[in-house]
């Protein structure tokens, strides 16, 4: 079976919009194009109906009610709204937030902004697999804590957090619990009731929906969560997020959630099998490869491997027929290696050598096999070109060298 190049294996970065989703969206551009807030004519009514259907589809995927969903432009906005909205609304009750060192930048940067505005934020360190524990959260809580925000599953290393444990603790202590569930929804079970979640962010383009739309789940009962909006205007979404709803995108988000929820069990098995094929194929063929993140509690499609003595961007150049990403500094504009790798304590050298693969709905076994072959070949070639590998083969302890650095 031949493969079509280039191969896409970066599904944690974004996903292809499922053609079934695109089909459902199209009429809302050219035929049912009304503004869903137009109360007085059929164009508006049709749009509103479609939005309400999407709300319910989304809610079903996470165990919530449609009335608890706010549509946004994406998870970055949802995370901003959750943190800033709760902080502003509950600041009389307290000024302390708890989050983790491995959250997405939009959570970390928002937290930094809140710190500048006078809030205190605790960034919990993670263990070598990238996990925090409910005990850590418990120890960090004070009587001023108003929000705990812990991501459901990590985008770089795939590690899944003990969300249900943390949710239970937060319920006990009467502290609101937000989770950035962008990488989890549609891939692993997410249930806001069973897991004690009060706020949840998700994004369409991570689950085979369109880019530019996401949502924030805001609990309505036990307790009723209130938010100060970060966008002022016409009062849409129960006053929590003004702005005309992006009807076609929302329709796409709803459809993507419904498909993902319905196909999750089977797709999870399939992507897991492909990912294990990839992981074993690579790690069995090459010595000195290290899996980053938890070996078992991780997203079914994610695998993140460090290849000692070979630099990540250099390796990606060699496998340019396969789209992946790297934790190497060379691939970031700041020349800093991934802060997530740093938080794991992996060490900068191995951080520079890491590659993230994201297996998804549309990947095939043939693509996985092609990738394994290509990758193994390139790693071997680059190791032959590596002064570090040469030194190690000569029995030199790299830690003993006084590097010149720069």
């Amino acid at each position, binding site marked *: 079976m031949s493969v079509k190049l280039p191969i896409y294996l970066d599904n944690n970065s974004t996903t292809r919009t499922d053609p079934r989703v695109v089909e459902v969206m199209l009429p809302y551009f050219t035929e049912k194009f009304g503004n869903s807030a137009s109360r007085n004519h059929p164009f508006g009514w049709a749009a509103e109906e479609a939005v309400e259907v999407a709300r319910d589809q989304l809610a079903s995927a996470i165990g919530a009610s449609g009335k608890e969903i706010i549509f946004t432009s994406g998870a970055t906005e949802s995370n901003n709204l959750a943190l800033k909205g709760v902080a502003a609304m509950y600041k009389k009750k307290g000024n302390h937030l708890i989050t983790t060192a491995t959250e997405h930048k939009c959570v970390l940067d928002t937290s930094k902004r809140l710190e500048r505005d006078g809030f205190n934020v605790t960034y919990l360190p993670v263990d070598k697999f990238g996990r925090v524990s409910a005990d850590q959260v418990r120890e960090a809580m004070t009587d001023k804590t108003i929000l705990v925000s812990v991501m459901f599953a990590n985008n770089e290393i795939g590690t899944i957090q003990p969300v249900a444990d943390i949710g239970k603790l937060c319920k006990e202590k009467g502290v609101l619990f937000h989770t950035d569930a962008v990488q989890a929804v549609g891939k692993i079970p997410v249930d806001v009731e069973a897991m004690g979640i009060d706020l949840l962010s998700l994004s369409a383009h991570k689950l085979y929906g369109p880019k530019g739309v996401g949502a924030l789940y805001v609990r309505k009962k036990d307790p009723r969560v209130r938010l100060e909006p970060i966008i002022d205007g016409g009062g849409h979404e129960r006053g929590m997020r003004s702005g005309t709803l992006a009807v076609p995108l929302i329709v796409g988000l709803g459809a993507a959630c419904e498909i993902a929820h319905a196909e999750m069990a089977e797709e999870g098995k399939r992507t897991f099998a492909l990912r294990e094929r990839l992981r074993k194929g690579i790690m069995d063929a090459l010595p000195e490869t290290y899996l980053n993140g938890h070996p078992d509690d991780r997203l079914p499609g994610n695998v993140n491997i460090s290849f000692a*003595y070979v630099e990540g961007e250099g390796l990606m150049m060699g496998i340019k027929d396969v789209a992946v990403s790297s934790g190497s500094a060379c691939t970031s504009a700041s020349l800093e290696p991934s802060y997530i790798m740093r938080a794991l304590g992996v060490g900068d050298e191995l951080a520079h050598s890491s590659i993230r693969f994201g297996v998804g709905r549309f990947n095939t076994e043939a693509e996985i096999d092609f990738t394994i072959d290509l990758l193994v070949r390139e790693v071997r070639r680059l190791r032959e070109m590596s002064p570090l590998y040469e030194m190690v083969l000569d029995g030199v302890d790299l830690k003993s060298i006084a590097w010149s650095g720069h």
Partner: protein
Amino acid sequence: MPYSDKILEHYNNPRNVGSFSQSDASVGTGLVGAPECGDVMKLQIKVDPVTGLIEDARFKTFGCGSAIASSSLATEWLKGKTLDQALAIKNTSIVEELALPPVKVHCSVLAEDAIKAAIKNYHEKQGVPAGTEAEVAVASH
């Protein structure tokens, strides 16, 4: 950003990959960079003791495509040069030749450092202290 053709060419067909024996008196070895920075270059020159010209060069690099290309290009340029001429190689020439984007300029700087380190090591092995008149005299032959 897509890589320039020249970078890809050096990356796919690197020139002069390999190693000389460090115990060879006519070999100078420069090892620059650090694993934590994601860039380590080992560059070696073999100097003809009669003519004083660099007759051969080798490199090994741990780094991105631009780093590999910069060091590969450096070994190409070094062959047939005097040590003086080699010391005069500027990183900006590497940037221009490979069309390195601004964020990759530091790779060319490291290559220039590697050349200088290799020459320094060669001089040390000849028993010429670095930076003395004697070194300048040897270099200019």
